[in-house]
């Protein structure tokens, strides 16, 4: 790829989806965009870049954004966050919300749906505890194509074998030909919407728990800070944020702080006072403690 073309693509992706692509990711750009070149019968990548430069082809713009932002997703990805959700975060919020009996959870990069459906399965496994509760799980993504797949809840044999315990497959999925589909009760628990994290998401409402895993890594510092702070605004004082294993709020914002003992789990700094309960979750946020 010519340097000028790469520079154009890098700035195009930065402005449309906030992605920061360094020259070391050139192979990634090529491998993700070549399928579009072939689909559209273009002679090669330079022609695709030219068409983007002209900017008249909205569908092409959308296709390129989707190809670059779509990431492979797993059920119960990394396992630990969902153990923490079940064993620490939900018990605490069950207690804190026992009068409202309502819980809203946001999967902020839902991709093909594995994360919001995993959350739904965790709640279903605790069905007795949630009897009489209203639980909303909202999944959002920038890509229409992945959202369509997420809504169908239809997965290949390979996909359902990555991270999904076999008992869960049997319990919550139906076999349809070669594919496996989340059953209607599982799908009914999840609402999927198109949303770009770069633009306002205040219209989605407030969330007690936000999952925003393995997304921030693609953004530059200022964008990460902006997203995290806007997310904090969508959370009540004791709201919980899950980030990916390679991500943190430290050095980015003071609005959120890690929960001691739970890796990848964060809460609003102002939540400190309401966290004074004797559980792992109740430990004072490290950052808040240090700043006082």
């Amino acid at each position: 790829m010519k340097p000028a073309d790469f520079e154009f693509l890098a700035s195009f992706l930065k402005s449309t989806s906030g992605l920061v692509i360094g020259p070391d990711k050139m192979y990634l750009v090529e491998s993700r965009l070549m399928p579009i070149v072939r689909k559209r019968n273009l002679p090669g990548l330079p022609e695709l870049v030219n068409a983007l430069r002209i900017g008249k082809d909205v569908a092409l713009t959308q296709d390129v954004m989707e190809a670059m932002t779509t990431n492979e997703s797993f059920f119960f990805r990394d396992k630990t966050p969902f153990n923490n959700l079940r064993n620490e975060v939900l018990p605490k919020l069950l207690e804190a919300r026992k009068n409202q009996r309502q819980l809203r959870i946001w999967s902020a990069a839902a991709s093909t749906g594995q994360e919001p459906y995993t959350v739904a399965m965790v709640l279903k496994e605790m069905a007795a505890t949630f009897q009489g509760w209203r639980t909303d799980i909202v999944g959002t993504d920038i890509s229409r194509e992945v959202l369509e797949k997420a809504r169908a809840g239809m997965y290949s044999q390979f996909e359902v074998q990555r991270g999904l315990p076999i008992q869960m497959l049997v319990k919550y999925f139906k076999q349809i030909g070669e594919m496996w589909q989340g059953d209607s009760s599982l799908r009914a628990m999840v609402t999927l919407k198109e949303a770009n994290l770069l633009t306002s998401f205040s219209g989605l409402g407030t969330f007690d728990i936000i999952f925003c895993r393995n997304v921030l890594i693609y953004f530059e510092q200022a964008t990460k800070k902006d997203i995290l702070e806007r997310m904090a605004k969508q959370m009540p004082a004791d709201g919980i944020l899950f980030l990916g294993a390679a991500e943190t709020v430290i050095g980015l914002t003071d609005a959120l702080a890690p929960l001691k003992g739970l890796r990848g789990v964060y809460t609003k700094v102002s939540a400190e006072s309401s966290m004074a309960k004797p559980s792992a979750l109740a430990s004072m946020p490290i950052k808040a403690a240090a700043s006082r």
Partner: protein
Amino acid sequence: MKSCLVVDDSRVIRKVARQILEDLRFETFEAVDGQEALNICRNRMPDAILLDWNMPVMNGIDFLRQRRLEKGGSSPVVVFCTTENDIKHITEAIQAGANEYIMKPFDREIIETKFLEVGLV
């Protein structure tokens, strides 16, 4: 080092599975059918078994039922690995005491995540 017995009548599958399991730091050994697997378990119990369904002499499900009846029947951890990919077979395997279930074709990642699921890696 944990050990895994690979039970499959296909030499190619045994070889592929062994390669993956050895990369996951398992000591591996092989059996070509359920009967041979039973004999091996009686002499030296592995930590895990990767188990095919359709095999001559004794198939996987008969082996599993027999194994669970014998002394120390709760071990080892058994992961089915078969082309039988319908809900009926899967349910039957779980009821017979399978800990996990892999539908062929499998790849490295599937073996790894399934073994992780049952606490073997």
